[in-house]
């Protein structure tokens, strides 16, 4: 075998999983959900690698497509030097002996009509072990190793608690003696006290069998507990990859920082939950341009010469985003304004529109809904904003769009940052561009030509 110890056991290169969005009359493809959009990492034997992110960031899809439980639409996955994306079905079946997965939901990951013994033995049967006695011996041994008893074999999944089922899940994954285990949210459905039991068991098993583990979780606490290295994922891309210790002590990417600060600490003296991330994860079928996080980022780089506090700048950007996406519904703003101001709307026929409500009221409401103060610190910005508000109050959404588009352009929106290696860790953020040499920033400032 050409594979040597120093080489990674698995290498994932530019892994992509896009789902086609069909629609329209002829069921043609109208778009693609880029669930996983080019992630790369290496993982070494005996290592625990974590992937963390919010729901909808594509981390579970990453897990299933990197071991071809779902077919990746692009990229390569090498296991011990061999590209598994080129395996035929026989090779793939054999590959399942090397890499196993444990699943998130202990309730649905076991067939309710199959006894636990049969469930754990399933990989053995499927892989061709026809000796029933041998299988039973293996299953009995496995169940005992994960802390259950061999007599549990005849019982059915509903007779076990969530924690026990997750133990059985580990037994099932171990049955074919794999080298790598991919664990998708292994403890998120469990109570805290049971969570730590399962994590402890995973650690013990890892040491006993020199397992390589990939953990997918939204829970940074869990990741911190067992991972050696961590990748933070946002909308199908890695934004930061670092050693667990470094990532938690000194997060570099604003998203990592926001995630960390959103975790409630079990200390009533430290209340406040840090930086708040506004809004939801954007639609992965139409990810934002440039840095995908810029629509929610609390640290977006303002254009030069703009003197605004970060929070006001963030609100301005957010407002601009809504105008651009036309998620801002002017008539609705007007109606809400009318309700809030107690304006009598009885004599208006049909739906209320912007023209029915005084411009000032609409502007006040717009400012209120978007958290924008009446006076901005930066005079240029103030003028632009006032102009846009006027246009909006007249119902001219397009005009406002243009006004805002020109003046508040940021590098984060224009250029996609690249995951770059620095001091042993990888970060993908423009905040780190200027730290490198002059060139990159200059380049970034040039307007994009189509």
């Amino acid at each position, binding site marked *: 075998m050409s594979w040597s110890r120093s080489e990674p056991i698995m290498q994932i290169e530019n892994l992509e999983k896009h789902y086609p969005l069909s629609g329209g009359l002829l069921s043609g493809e109208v778009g693609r959900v880029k669930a996983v959009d080019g992630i790369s990492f290496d993982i070494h034997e005996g290592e625990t690698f974590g992937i963390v992110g919010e729901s909808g960031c594509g981390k579970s899809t990453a897990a299933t497509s990197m071991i071809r439980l779902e077919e990746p639409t692009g990229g390569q996955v090498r296991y011990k030097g061999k590209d598994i994306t080129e395996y035929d079905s026989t090779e793939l079946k054999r590959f399942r002996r090397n890499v196993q997965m444990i699943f998130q939901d202990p309730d649905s990951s076991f067939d309710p009509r199959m006894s636990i013994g049969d469930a754990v033995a399933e990989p053995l049967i499927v892989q061709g072990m026809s000796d029933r006695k041998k299988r039973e011996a293996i299953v009995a041994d496995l169940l005992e190793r994960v802390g259950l008893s061999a007599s549990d074999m005849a019982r059915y999944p509903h007779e076990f608690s969530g924690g026990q089922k997750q133990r059985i899940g580990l037994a099932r994954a171990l049955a074919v003696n794999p080298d790598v285990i991919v664990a998708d949210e292994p403890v998120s459905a469990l109570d*805290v006290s049971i969570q730590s039991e399962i994590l402890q068991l995973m650690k013990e098993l890892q040491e006993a069998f020199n397992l390589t583990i990939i953990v997918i979780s939204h829970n940074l606490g869990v990741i911190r*507990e067992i991972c050696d290295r961590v990748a933070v994922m946002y909308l199908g891309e890695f934004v930061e990859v670092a050693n667990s210790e470094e990532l938690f002590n000194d997060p570099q990417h604003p998203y990592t920082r926001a995630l960390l600060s959103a975790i409630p600490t*079990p200390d009533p003296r430290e209340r406040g939950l840090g930086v*708040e991330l506004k809004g939801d994860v954007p639609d992965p079928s139409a990810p934002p341009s440039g840095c995908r996080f810029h629509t929610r980022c609390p640290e977006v780089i303002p254009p030069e010469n703009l003197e605004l506090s970060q929070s006001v700048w963030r609100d301005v950007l957010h407002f601009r985003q809504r105008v651009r996406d036309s998620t801002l519904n002017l008539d609705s703003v007007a*109606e809400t304004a009318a309700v809030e101001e107690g304006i009598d709307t009885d004599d208006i026929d049909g739906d209320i529109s912007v023209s029915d409500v005084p411009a000032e009221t609409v502007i006040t409401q717009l400012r209120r809904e978007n958290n924008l103060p009446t006076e901005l610190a930066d005079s240029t910005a103030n003028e632009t904003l006032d102009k846009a508000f006027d246009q909006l109050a007249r119902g001219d959404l397009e005009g406002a769009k243009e006004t805002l588009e020109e003046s508040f352009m940021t590098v984060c929106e224009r250029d996609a940052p690249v995951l770059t290696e620095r001091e042993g860790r990888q970060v993908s953020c423009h905040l780190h561009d200027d730290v490198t040499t002059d060139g990159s920033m200059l380049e970034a400032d040039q307007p994009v030509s189509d």
Partner: protein
Amino acid sequence: MSKQPSQTIGTDESTRSSNSLLSVSDLCTYFQTDEGVVKAVDGVSFDVQSGETVAIVGESGSGKTVTSESITRLFKSPPGFIPEGSIEFDGEEVNDMTVEELRTLRGGRVSHIFQNPQGALNPVYTIGWQLREAIELHQEVTKKEANEKAIELLTQVGIPEASARLGDYPHQLSGGMKQRVMIAIALACEPDLLIADEPTTALDVTIQAQILKLLKSLQEERDMAILFITHDLGVVAEVADRVVVMYAGKVMERGPVMEIFETPSHPYTRALLECLPSKGNLGGIPGSLPSPIDPPDGCRFASRCVFAQDECLEGPQPPAYEAGTADHVVSCIHYEPGGNPDIVLKSDATVSALDVDQMGVGGENR
């Protein structure tokens, strides 16, 4: 000199109940099943003052959700029933209320929000319809007024362009948005008490932070009391003024949030805090929940407790002894007057330091 023994958990509230918004004492909620009577809640007492946040914390099977459902009798009945105990809301006994009075109470002065906003919103109606329904059920308003009120509520829970959102169906909204709508519906009748049952468990941390902040600001605006049910001690530390720690249908410890986190006194509370991932102590709490049908004598936690003595396995659950201050009570024999709480408080022993294997890793075996 020494600490005065306070009375049992069941009765020590009697002196305070008159000025509490909600006063639950000795509440038992049982469920009739084929296997026997499941004692989901078995003698629970606590109270909630107006404008404060009380958190009930416990693992699954602790009876925290059933406790919250008992307050407005939301649990399914039969098989559920309340054999004893009293629930006083603003001086009125809920257990004596008629079905009609209960209906007025629910969604009126007491509102619920639940863990799963997807399940709590009806997928076939627009959110506007559901909001208006909530408003019209308890208030005499015209359709137009209801509409305006709905817009107002959505704006208050941080949903922009409220009037446009009224026509949306639940599936068009994200999880966080749905939970905001649920909160708006719960607020429709200006409740004095909001019962939030794991409202953020199904959400991402970032959205959880948004919702927690929202609840906090709403509480300040409205001087509303919140009864927060959760298993997450981090969330408890974030929102609670006072904490009730439940285990196997009983209250183990109750006190102000600072004291619970700074001097956790019940061995169970201490074990629970040790289990937090950030503590770096893995291993969980060895052992399993006692049977809710036939609970053992003595302290419910005794079989899993590091500090258990022979007396812990006898008689009823220990009464609520004071631990430090009058407001901080612990149901543990070591806090009995003349007892030595330092056995627990000064001990470095944590569950993870135990020989886990001796206790049986698969201890949650039933």
